[in-house]
C-alpha cells in the first residue's frame, strides 16, 4: 500500500548544491521519504549521493531549494539543530571518534538529550543490537575493526533517538558476512519504527532491503520507483547490478 502524502517525513524540492564556486554537485534534486519507509539512493561514484546527505544534514548548506522535515523548512539551520530535530546522519567512512572510548562515542550520540532514563534504555538496546560494542565499551573507537566501527557509528546515531536515520554506504569495505549482519540490523531498526534513508553502491543489497529507491546520476535523479521494479529494470540491471 502506497503511503499517503501526509505521512511525509522528508521532502526535497529542487535542491542544488555546489562546492566552491565551480563544482555543481546537485542539480535540482526532488525526493520524498514517507514515515516508516526504507528508501534507497543508488548511483555510481561521484554521482552526488554523499553530497545529498550532507545537504540534508546541513553540513553543506543547499545553494537553492527547500528541504522540509516533517513539514518544517530546515535548509537554513545548523547541523546540530537539524540533528536535534530528529535526523541522524551516519557519514561515509563511519567517522567514529577515534580517541573516545566506545561508550563515550555512544554518549556523544545522546549529547543533546536530557531524558536520563531514556538514554539508559537506548544504551541497553544498542548493546542488544550490537553485543560486540558492549564487550568493547572501554576500548578506544580508533582501535575497532572496520565492521565494529560501522556498528558503533550506527549505534551512536541510534543514541540520538532519531526519527530519520540516514546511512552513507554502511557496507563499504566490509566482508559479506558483516554486510549481511548490518543489513539485517537496518531492517530491524526499521521495524522498530525508524525511517531509513540508505545510500549504497551495493545496489542489489540496498534494493533488497528498501521499499522504494531513487537513482542519482551526476547530480540528478534519473529514476524513481519501488525497489522490486528497479531490480527488474534492464537499465538499472546493466548500470548498477552488473547483469
Amino acid at each position: 500500500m502506497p503511503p499517503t502524502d501526509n505521512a511525509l517525513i522528508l521532502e526535497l524540492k529542487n535542491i542544488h548544491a555546489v562546492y566552491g564556486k565551480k563544482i555543481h554537485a546537485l542539480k535540482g534534486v526532488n525526493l520524498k521519504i514517507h514515515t516508516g519507509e526504507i528508501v534507497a539512493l543508488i548511483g555510481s561514484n561521484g554521482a552526488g549521493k554523499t553530497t545529498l546527505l550532507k545537504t540534508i544534514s546541513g553540513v553543506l548548506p543547499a545553494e537553492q531549494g527547500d528541504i522540509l522535515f516533517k513539514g518544517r523548512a530546515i535548509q537554513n539551520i545548523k547541523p546540530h539543530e537539524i540533528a536535534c530535530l530528529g535526523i541522524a546522519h551516519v557519514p561515509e567512512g563511519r567517522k567514529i571518534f577515534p580517541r573516545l572510548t566506545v561508550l563515550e562515542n555512544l554518549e556523544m550520540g545522546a549529547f543533546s538529550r536530557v531524558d536520563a532514563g531514556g538514554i539508559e534504555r537506548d544504551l541497553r538496546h544498542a548493546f542488544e543490537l550490537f553485543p560486540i560494542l558492549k564487550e568493547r565499551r572501554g576500548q578506544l573507537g580508533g582501535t575497532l575493526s572496520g565492521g565494529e566501527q560501522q556498528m558503533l557509528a550506527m549505534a551512536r546515531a541510534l543514541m540520538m533517538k532519531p526519527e530519520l536515520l540516514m546511512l552513507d554506504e554502511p557496507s563499504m569495505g566490509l566482508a559479506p558476512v558483516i554486510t549481511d549482519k548490518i543489513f539485517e540490523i537496518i531492517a530491524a531498526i526499521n521495524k522498530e519504527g525508524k525511517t531509513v534513508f540508505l545510500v549504497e553502491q551495493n545496489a542489489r543489497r540496498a534494493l533488497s532491503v528498501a521499499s522504494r529507491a531513487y537513482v542519482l546520476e551526476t547530480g540528478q535523479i534519473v529514476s524513481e520507483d519501488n525497489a522490486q521494479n528497479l531490480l527488474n529494470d534492464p537499465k538499472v540491471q546493466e548500470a548498477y547490478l552488473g547483469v
Partner: protein
Amino acid sequence: MFIEQLFNGLVLGSIYSLIALGYTLVYGILMMINFAHSEVLMVGAFVGLAAYTLLAPPAGGWVALVLVLLVAMTASGLLGIVIEKLAYRPLRQAARLAPLISAIGVSIILSNAVFLWVSNQLLSFPKVVPEQSISLGFMKIGSLQILIFFTSLILMAVLHFMVQKTKMGKAMRACADDLTTSGLMGIDVNKVIAFTFLIGGALAGAAGVLNGMYYGSIKYNLGFLPGVKAFTAAVLGGIGNIAGAVLGGFLLGILEVMAAGYLPNGSQWKDVFAFVVLIGVLLIRPSGILGERIAEKI
C-alpha cells in the same frame, strides 16, 4: 642543591604547563595557534593586580589569593571567548594563515591597549600570601614556590577531571577528533569552541597571577616570553595533546632552571634555551613527545 634546583624547575614548569594547556586545547580543536594567548595571560596578571588592590585585604592571605585567582581567571576566560568570537570565528572557513595573522593582530592590540591605557611601567606584584622559607632538612624551599606548584597542580587536576568525565569535556574531545561529525551528533560546536577558549583563557589568567607572584612584577609586555616558552612546551609535548602540554611544561621548566644554574653564564642565557628546544623539536620530532594520533580505520 640539585634537588632544590629540580623543585625550582618544577615550579617554573608548572606555570609553563598551565599556559601550554591553553595553546594545546585550542590547537586540538581548531588546528590553529592562538598567538594572542600570551596577551590573555598578561591581561590576567593585570586584572589580578587590580583585584588585589581593590578587593583583597591589604595583609593578603589565602582568601585574597583565591579571590585574586578567581577574578583573573574569569577575566582571562571571558577575554578568550571574546577574542574567538570577534577575531577567529569569522575566519573559520578562511585559509589557515588568516586566523594566525588575526591572532597576531589581537596580540598587538592587547599589549598596546595595556601600554597606553593602564601602564607602561614595571608594576610590582604582591606575594599575596606572606612568604616563609621552609626547611625539609635536605632542602629549603620557599612557601611561594610551594603555593605556585600546588595551585597549578590543583588546576590541572580539575582540568583533567573536566575533560575526562564531564559531558562538556567529552564534547571537547569529540570536537578535537572530528568537528563536522560532532555537529552531526547534535553538539553545538561553536559553544564547545567558546568553552575551550574560556578554559584555556582561565588557565592563562591563573598563570598570569602565579607568574606575577613568581617574578614580583608585571609589565604590558610580560606575556611574550612565557608565551613563547609555553608554546615551546606544548610543541615539545606534542601540540594538541593535553598530557603532552603538562609534560612539556615541566621538562622545559627543569631544563631552563638547570641550564641557568649549571652552565657557565647560564642565567644570562636562560631565555634562549626554550628557543633552542623549539627549533630542535621542530627539526627532530615535530609531532612532539606524546603527539601521536591513533589512525582512523577506513
